[in-house]
């Protein structure tokens, strides 16, 4: 008759998981708020430069994206590794910058009338691109009267 005798098998107390859904939901809401929907499939790789004088893109709905960089790994076998231009979703043939004017026109049409003057072109250009292609793109943008642009960058 000992005081410390075990009373049969000790039962593992059941873990109360009723707050688990709440926990997961809060993580979910966190992610919903801090991230944004991916609007396009990237067909070129780029690493944007770092800068200090950056501004935030105010209204994302007014922005169109022009990506310049090397094609992604699986496309590189077919397209080579020279810098290419991607307009929103489409990779354009070679470095034919002439498409840009049509692209700007189409993007402008898709905006509401009062928003048209505020259209913004967001240039996401890889650090190691040569300026030639960037200047050609800029020249086309000027001709298409898309004058408000933004060089995408990271805060240093």
């Amino acid at each position, binding site marked *: 008759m000992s005081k410390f005798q075990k009373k049969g098998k000790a039962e593992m107390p059941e873990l109360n*998981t*009723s707050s*688990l*859904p709440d926990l*997961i*939901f809060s*993580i*979910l809401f966190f*992610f*919903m708020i*801090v*991230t*944004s*929907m*991916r609007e396009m499939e990237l067909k070129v790789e780029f690493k*944007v*430069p770092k*800068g*200090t*004088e*950056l*501004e*935030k*893109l105010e209204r*994302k709905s007014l*922005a169109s994206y022009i990506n310049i960089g090397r094609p992604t790994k699986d496309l590189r076998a077919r397209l080579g590794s020279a810098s290419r231009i991607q307009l929103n979703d489409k990779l354009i043939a070679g470095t034919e910058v002439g498409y840009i004017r049509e692209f700007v026109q189409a993007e402008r049409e898709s905006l509401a009338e009062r928003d048209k003057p505020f259209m913004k072109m*967001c*240039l996401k*250009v*890889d*650090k*190691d*691109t*040569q*300026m*030639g292609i*960037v*200047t050609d793109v*800029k*020249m086309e*943008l*000027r*001709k298409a*009267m*898309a*004058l*408000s*642009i*933004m*060089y*995408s*960058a*990271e*805060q240093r």
Partner: protein
Amino acid sequence: MGKRKVPGLNASSTADISFILLIFFLVTTSMDTNRGLAVRLPNPPEENQQDPPKIRERNSMVVNVNMNNQIMVTVAKDSRTIEVSELRELAKQFIANPENDPDLPELVPVELPAPFGVQNITKNHVISLQTDRATNYDTYFQVENELYGAYNDLRDELAKKTFGRSYNECNEDEQLACRQYYKCVISEAEPRKYNQ
């Protein structure tokens, strides 16, 4: 009738459901913060363009970036090769010309909005940026960043001096006044090809 006991709802699968939602959001969204250097391009060149207006030598600062990513700055015929880090100070000196140096832009009296009145500012200054087709984009971006940084610094200093707070804390009118005081004029020439 007595109170009927409500059977407890089995909520053990809610966790699974929310997990699936969470994973869906993790996959389809990206955390890209859309920040960047906002630039306004000039109007397109006209077909039959006349010669550009002559700019006096003291009013122009030419920043050249060559194919080896070296930066050369020319102010009043004095050219020298510099590092990116030196560019901001040089540009600030050039834009503000605080000592009325005859080699830096002339100070012209200009009517400005409310708190400033008529001020002597370097109204006619132009910073022109020339790149080569083979220049690295990163270098170009750093140069642009420093040039815009020079303007932002000057505006910030001005705002602190006149309004007692930094440029970002000023209201819209005050910011506009500061912007007109130091008006940003960066022109980008067509890049030259090598051997041209």
